[in-house]
């Protein structure tokens, strides 16, 4: 009980001073997209809400998790589909998971 409230207490509820709280949150918590930010320039797997996957190099992304990829191979449940795509913008609306390569 006490441990949990301690964490919550550190996150200020007050939003009247917009810059200060944001900084404090950033100090105490790791945001999911900050982790993905570290994968820029590396290989990544994008899993969609359907059975499709896109494997490629992560170039960038935004808050909607729209994703820019390079040298992309599309996969469905049967395996690779189509040719390598040099560069693309993938709509974030269908993204379920991002899987950075571990190396």
């Amino acid at each position, binding site marked *: 009980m006490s441990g949990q409230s301690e964490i919550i207490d550190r996150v200020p509820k007050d939003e009247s001073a917009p810059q200060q709280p944001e900084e404090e949150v950033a100090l105490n918590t790791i945001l999911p997209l900050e982790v993905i*930010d570290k994968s820029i320039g590396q290989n990544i797997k994008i899993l969609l809400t359907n059975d499709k996957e896109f494997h490629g190099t992560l170039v*960038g*992304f935004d808050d909607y998790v729209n994703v*820019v990829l390079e040298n992309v191979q599309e996969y469905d449940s049967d395996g690779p589909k189509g040719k390598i*795509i*040099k560069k693309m*913008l993938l709509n974030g609306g269908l993204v379920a998971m991002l899987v950075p390569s571990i190396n």
Partner: protein
Amino acid sequence: MSDASPPPPPAEASPPPPPSTSGSPTDFLKGVVGKRVVVRLTSGVDYRGVLSCLDGYMNIALEQTEEHVNGTVTNRYGDAFIRGNNVLYISAAEAL
């Protein structure tokens, strides 16, 4: 930064990962407006044409549009408005 830093090597020399602001979706889109693109819908249908413009919903205006289903042209449109929710991805049809 103070000394006269040499110009960056002419590409290919494994550049460091760019900062998160460059290469963002917005930057990608700035680079492809006016170019030939492939728009793949979630249904698997492709639209190939010249990207006139798009908005924050990924609604797209295409010119000289060809509809491709399973690799064959099934329709041609002078202009086409594509509602963004159907878009799976946009890629450049030619090298950027």
